[in-house]
């Protein structure tokens, strides 16, 4: 990690970049927060470890409007989101200096907390750390396997390659060991009644904190329709429980074909709603009907949902 800080310090000092977007130490070992560093001195609080799951690409929408280049640390999966933002003309590529940071999967603190009360510190989660992470609690110390504490999304990792970068720091690892669409298939196998019950139950937990929307790199509209007084959707979503459930479905439709499956929505949901399932179902269907497509893999590629070809399937052929 020190190597990364040194490199970022050098980039700031020699004027290559005017600022750095990265993660800043949090009040606990497991909650570093996205931060924009504007001086070399401030980088002393920079951190990059197993808890830096946040996808920073969305911050570049505002940052790339600023004077001078901005260095941004992107993990392999974050670079898909960045490419998608380039495609939608939301970031200015030339104003970004992309450090492709290595990744060996990111950690889910909820999994660590399970069975480990009173955590005081966690160590060994850096990129070059060991296979075990060390947890100190008020009841004593304990080692658990890094792999067992991975976020669910890391088990369906898209791969260790950065799709776009100016330079790469550190080695990455493909942590995929599960079938990407297994969860979706499980739901597809349910009866309509079971599906309805499942989603009604999950979505009833929603407190409309908007964390999913605010963190989502595809939800980058200047003004979200749910905040827009021009439409009646806003008021309705706030007062009608049916419409509130529709919020997530409408959101999934809005990001369909653009969602890179970065999994941030589920990671930040304070209620633990598996929101990524909606998006992944869309991705699965797009793959099935239009051939495999990964949003953000290629910033030039036309999304099948906003493209038309003579080979497109006809309505009724959806089997």
């Amino acid at each position, binding site marked *: 990690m020190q190597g990364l800080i040194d490199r970022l310090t050098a980039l700031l000092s020699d004027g290559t970049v005017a600022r750095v977007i990265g993660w800043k130490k949090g009040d606990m070992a497991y909650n570093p927060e996205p931060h924009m560093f504007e001086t070399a001195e401030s980088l002393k609080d920079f951190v990059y470890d197993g808890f830096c799951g946040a996808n920073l690409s969305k911050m570049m929408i505002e940052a790339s*409007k600023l004077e001078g280049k901005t260095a941004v640390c992107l993990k392999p999966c974050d670079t898909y989101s960045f490419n998608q933002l380039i*495609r*939608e*003309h*939301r970031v200015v590529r030339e104003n970004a200096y992309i450090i492709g940071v290595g990744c060996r999967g990111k950690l889910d603190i909820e999994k660590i907390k399970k069975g480990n009360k009173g955590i005081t510190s966690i160590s060994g989660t850096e990129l070059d750390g060991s296979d075990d992470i060390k947890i100190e609690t008020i009841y004593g110390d304990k080692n658990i396997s890094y792999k067992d504490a991975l976020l669910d999304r890391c088990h369906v990792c898209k791969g260790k390659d950065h799709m776009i970068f100016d330079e790469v720091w550190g080695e990455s690892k493909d942590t995929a060991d599960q079938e990407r669409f297994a969860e979706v298939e499980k739901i597809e196998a349910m009866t309509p009644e079971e599906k309805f019950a499942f989603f009604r139950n999950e979505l009833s937990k929603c407190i409309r904190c908007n964390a999913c929307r605010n963190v989502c790199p595809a939800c*980058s*509209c*200047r*003004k*979200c*329709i749910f905040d*827009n007084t*021009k*439409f*009646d*959707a806003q008021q309705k979503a706030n007062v009608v429980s049916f419409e509130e459930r529709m919020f997530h479905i409408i959101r999934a439709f*809005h*990001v369909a074909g*653009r969602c890179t499956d970065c999994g941030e929505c589920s990671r930040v949901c304070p209620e633990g709603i598996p929101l990524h399932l909606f998006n992944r179902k869309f991705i699965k269907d797009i793959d099935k009907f239009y051939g495999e497509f990964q949003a953000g893999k290629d910033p030039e590629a*036309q*999304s099948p949902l*906003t*493209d*038309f070809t*003579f080979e497109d399937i006809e309505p009724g052929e959806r089997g």
Partner: protein
Amino acid sequence: MQRIGVFVCHCGTNIAATVDVKKVVELVRFEPGVVFADDYMYMCSEAGQEKIIAAIKEHDLTGLVICSCSPRMHEKTFRACAEKAGLNPYMVEVANIREQCSWIHKDREEATEKAVILARAAIAKVNLNTPLQEGESPVTKRALIIGGGIAGIQTALDIADAGYEVDIVEREPSIGGRMSQFDKTFPTLDCASCILTPKMVEVNQHPNITLYTYSEVEGVSGYVGNFDVKIRKKARSVDMSACTGCGECQAKCPLGKMGKIPSEFDRGLRTRPAIYMPFAQAVPAVPVIDRENCTYFKTGKCGVCAKICPSKAVNYEQEDEIVTVKYGAIVVATGFDIINLDKFGEYAYNESPDVITSIELERLMNASGPTGGHLERMSDHKQPKDIVFIQCVGSRCDDEKGKPYCSKVCCMYTAKHAMLIKDHWPDTNITVFYIDVRTPGKNFDEFYRRAVEQYHVNYVKGQVGKVIPQPDGSLLVQGVDLLDNKQIMKKTDMVVLAAAVEPNKGVRKIATMLTASIDNNDFLTEAHAKLRPVESPTAGIFLSGMAQGPKDIPETVSQAGAAAVKVVGLLAKDKLKTNPCTAKCDPMFCNGCSTCANVCPYGAITYEDQQVRGPGVNETRRVAVVNNALCQGCGACTSACPSGAMDLQGFSNRQITTEVDSICR
């Protein structure tokens, strides 16, 4: 707040028999914005319109809701009526309480409730309506005909004679289409070529007509009055201006003698050389090289045609050429083919060369055909003494393998075939298996009766279950005679199948390019089945011939003329009124993401950097701009726009949601 007047039409008993019109009036009177509500027997009548005009003036109305028939019928009437009274025509909404309500409901209470709901939705929408102004767009005074068969030829001639320029795009090397393959035509039995070729020549010589043969439409953009069409002129490998059509090349092509390439024109009943004209009277009389089969193109050796051509017209280096031409109107005349018979194994079409289709029979009886007009079996070249005709092969078919419709021409051409054969070879025994004989049309039934009464053709009501090729070369036909209620087992020499017609395979692609709708059977649909039968619902697209539905030559020629008149009516205008219901971008909410431009079929959306000022915003940013002349108001952009910045005037997102809300209230 709007001041809305609601007018509920009885439409005689069309609406009033099922919907309690008076009750509708009473119930909508208290909807927000409504200041006046009334009913009348025929709202579209002169008296009805006067009632509306009087109410607008008396109650100072700002918006109208007419509860009547489909807006496709009378929206225009009521908009004009509003305009007469000084109201913007786009302040009128029609609630369709006839087609979508009274005609489909039986229960009076239910129908009345639904009528009220539909009225309520329209009222809610009018509350949000804003006056819209129509624009104007110029008209390119040139028409494109896709397809050079009799339909396309006739349409082109009629338009050209009216003084407008016309281009015909034909996929094959020659114009002429199906009709050029036929021998004689019913019900007058005049020779098909004799009446078609003069028209082909006329097309070729007409100063207003340009032919693009061996060419295909590759892309269409633009809109009524202003289409841009990309045409691919496939490489003929023969210089059109140098070739004299002497035919030396086809006579000398070594592949001609090898008999490997089946002739498309003769339905595979004979072969052709690699450099060929499809038939003797081809227009233009310029051969093409079939590059897939030509030895020179396959191996680089041969080159005989280039060597012997007296005018040095053969050019192996020629490349496909793409031209883009502007048109005001497009006519689809892509014609038909017969269905593939692979699914009809029971008739042994793929097993025996003596089971043929009717088009193949046309070629066999044609003097220019493979046998010089002498009817013979393809297996042993003997003249058949007994022939069985099977009707409705794939027509009027309930299951998936055929078509549900009647092909319309088979009954008549089978009677024609039977009589022609009997004329030439009177001792031939002919049996026709049929479901019904359908002969509506001038002199049609007389024609059929002649076959039965004068020529003694044996018509058997019933279907054939199986055709079994026999070791002795004959065919065993197993059928049923429904009138005599008995099984028929019959040996015959030849079986002729009246295979169902279907639209040409390429029509789906063309319809998609034109955004012209097609039905389940791939026939192009009309704007209105009865009242606008030669127009596509897509403005500026017209229909001619079999592409629209099964029809015979007289009908095709009449329809071709009708389509031509519609085209001329369009081209005669200098300016067209444009639909004001176009998309509009609100730069405050536009992300500049280009999604709308990607989905716009008309290329109407561009992007520019604009200074955007609003609460908390003052910056230059990339926003979408709609070109109103190009936008056709399809709404694709509004549904694709993630932020709702793109909206359709006259059908705004708010108007539509408010309609839905008032229906679900």
